[in-house]
């Protein structure tokens, strides 16, 4: 009797194995070879759940707006454009499989990256293996080790991203003539890289580093950190934090206070609608990085305002559960696919060598202004802006879509305000 049962279990095991193998191979059998009139498929993974989903969802909406736009204008190479995307759950583990699926099974014509450095990194070897163009969205020096000539990245942090990210912030604080600096970073990939870049900038300025620590993601109370920093009496206080920590530090600084003249720098999350309105007046005085703010000088980015308006309308009309304002990622997520589309149309055929060469030598005019890529696929110059939060009176969301709450301090060509000491704005 037991023999029979064991036999059955074994049969079941074999059946299971074959069923699994069968599902994995045949259910995803390649679709028929692309016809010339079939749509051009652009594939990517995107963080739609997990820690980076806030940014991922926002990016996806922007990319969908772009697809609508390009299809109205006649598509790419006369073919319509279709986006093929999968949720990577903000887990790098899922990324290699997704890109393999996109390239081998869905037979997409192009791939672009998901949102964030650690979700771009696992896709690199898969893409390099095929020798195809790869557009990156907010990756921090992903190409540093690979030196892949067909990788292009839209985060406007210049040829050396970690350093370029904070260079404009350090330019802005020069008016205070600081001598000492304290640095705090979240124990996470992006924040740690930012801080390393900031340390280099600080050394270049001859600042003395009086405090340099990291905090773990499960930190609930930030007042001990702020007090420890205050005890060192730094002139400026550079923070590279993730959303949880950004909010925690803003509140802790509001409660404990600080005498540093400039506070902030690399605080991710203070650009999100939810956190801005949640923190409200506590934000006043913070000097932080940003990429796009609703200031009048931003009209040097042609079409960006219209794009943001369309995004906000779309979110409102369709009741999407994503960032209500969309300043942080929308223009950039739009631009990185836009550049790809423009390049393919200019080359006139799907030839990855020619497209990469074209992107390298061309200056693109996009919703994020003029874009040029250097040899490593990063921007040739840093366009990260330093903004200071000013005149925030309450927790209304609307004030953040008007000029004035986040004034641009640097770069000089789009400056809209003067940097003031942190405590003078509290």
């Amino acid at each position, binding site marked *: 009797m037991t023999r029979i049962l064991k036999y059955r*279990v074994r049969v079941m095991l074999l059946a299971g194995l074959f069923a699994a193998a069968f599902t994995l191979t045949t259910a995803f*059998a390649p679709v028929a070879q692309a016809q010339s009139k079939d749509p051009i498929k652009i594939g990517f993974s995107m963080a739609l759940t997990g820690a980076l989903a806030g940014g991922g969802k926002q990016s996806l909406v922007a990319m969908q707006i772009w697809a609508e736009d390009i299809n109205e204008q006649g598509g790419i190479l006369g073919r319509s454009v279709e986006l093929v995307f999968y*949720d*990577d759950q903000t*887990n790098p*583990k899922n990324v290699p499989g997704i890109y393999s*699926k996109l390239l081998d099974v869905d037979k997409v014509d192009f791939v672009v990256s998901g949102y964030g450095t*650690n979700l771009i*990194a696992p896709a690199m070897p898969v893409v390099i293996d095929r020798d195809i163009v790869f557009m990156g969205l907010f990756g921090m020096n992903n190409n540093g080790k690979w030196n892949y000539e067909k990788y292009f990245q839209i985060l406007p942090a210049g040829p050396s991203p970690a350093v370029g990210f904070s260079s404009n912030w350090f330019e802005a604080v020069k008016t205070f003539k600081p001598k000492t600096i304290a640095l705090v970073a979240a*124990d996470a990939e992006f924040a740690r890289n930012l801080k390393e870049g900031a340390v280099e900038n600080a050394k270049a300025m001859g600042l003395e580093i009086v405090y340099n620590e990291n905090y773990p993601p499960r930190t609930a109370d930030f007042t001990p950190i702020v007090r420890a920093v205050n005890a060192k009496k730094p002139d400026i206080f550079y923070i590279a934090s993730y959303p949880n920590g950004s909010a925690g530090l803003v509140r802790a600084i509001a409660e404990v206070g600080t005498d540093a003249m400039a506070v902030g720098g690399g605080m991710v999350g203070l650009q999100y609608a939810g956190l801005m309105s949640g923190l409200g007046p506590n934000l006043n005085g913070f000097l932080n990085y940003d990429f796009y703010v609703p200031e009048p000088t931003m009209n040097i980015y042609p079409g960006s305002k219209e794009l943001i308006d369309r995004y906000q309308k779309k979110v409102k009309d369709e009741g999407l559960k994503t960032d209500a304002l969309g300043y942080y990622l929308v223009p950039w997520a739009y631009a990185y696919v836009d550049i790809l589309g423009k390049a393919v149309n200019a080359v006139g055929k799907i030839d990855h060598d020619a497209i990469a060469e074209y992107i390298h030598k061309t200056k693109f005019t996009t919703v994020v202004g003029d874009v040029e890529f250097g040899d490593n696929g990063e921007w040739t110059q840093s366009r990260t802006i330093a903004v200071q939060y000013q005149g925030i009176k309450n927790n209304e969301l609307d004030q953040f879509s008007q000029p004035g709450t986040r004034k641009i301090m640097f770069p000089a060509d789009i400056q809209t305000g003067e940097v003031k000491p942190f405590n003078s704005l509290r």
Partner: protein
Amino acid sequence: MIMRYKFEIGCVAFLVLAFILTQLGLNRFFFFAGFAVLQFIMIATAWNILGGYGGYINFGTAGFLGVGSYTSIALIQWSNVSIVPQIIAAAALAGLLGLAIGYFTLRLKGVYFAIATLALAIVLETVVNNWDFVGGAAGISILPTRKPELLGAVIVDRKIGVFGNYKEFLFFLIAGMTIFSVWVARTIEKGKLGRGLNAIKDNEEAAESMGVPTLRLKLIATTISGALMGAAGGIFPSYLTFIDPLTAFNLEFAVYSLAMPMIGGTFTWIGPVLGGLLLGTVQQVAIVTISSELNLLILGVVLVVFVTFAPHGLVGWFMKKN
């Protein structure tokens, strides 16, 4: 004679099958997804040696995998050690860790043991976060060797290599490791060790008074289980080419490592294999078909439904029906 080694012959047959698969020039997605599924089966099998046979719930799977991953990373950083020694070192170190945790927590039972392993995983994660040699919290990218060689033969090369592609090589490696783990698990189950562990699971005091060397058996089980998990982690950096502590020490591993044997059935080696196969395949398919928060829902619902309606897993459910 042949009947006696039936299982071993089956193992070799599967290994040969895995090798043939890599030579067929199949769709490369198969190897990516296949790798993930096989890694799951290996983790489930390793976990079950301690959790299923011995009844000790290890909640720190992520810790063992992380030690494996970061051993590999450290070796790569140190002098670009190739993949096979990486995996061996990873297994050795994670095995030692298993021995240590077994030794320090030998007085702990049940949930206390589970919480201790969880705490260990968090401590290890914090250490790696602060260890800049292996990238720290920022994570680290590694370049896989372009043309790895083993005993003079080129392993991966499009023309002259044994495998045409690095992913096919990794697939074959993990297939071999998984088959080995299953063989280890089955050997333990059928042997003295398995019977001893089962006695511990049923009633530790009684087993001890009957002369079962409980401490030694537990230490052997934690070491073997840890070493196999370490090996599964050791191959991970080469597959991902990017590792950060958040990925290596993901809570997900703890969940899956107990969910898979649970779904398959914990009392026999087939259980984790089936559970891993099922959950792994479902996960791989779901990622590329559903692509929304509903993905997470599948895991939740599968877990709740299985533990409520199939208390002894697939194997138990199947046996009862017939």
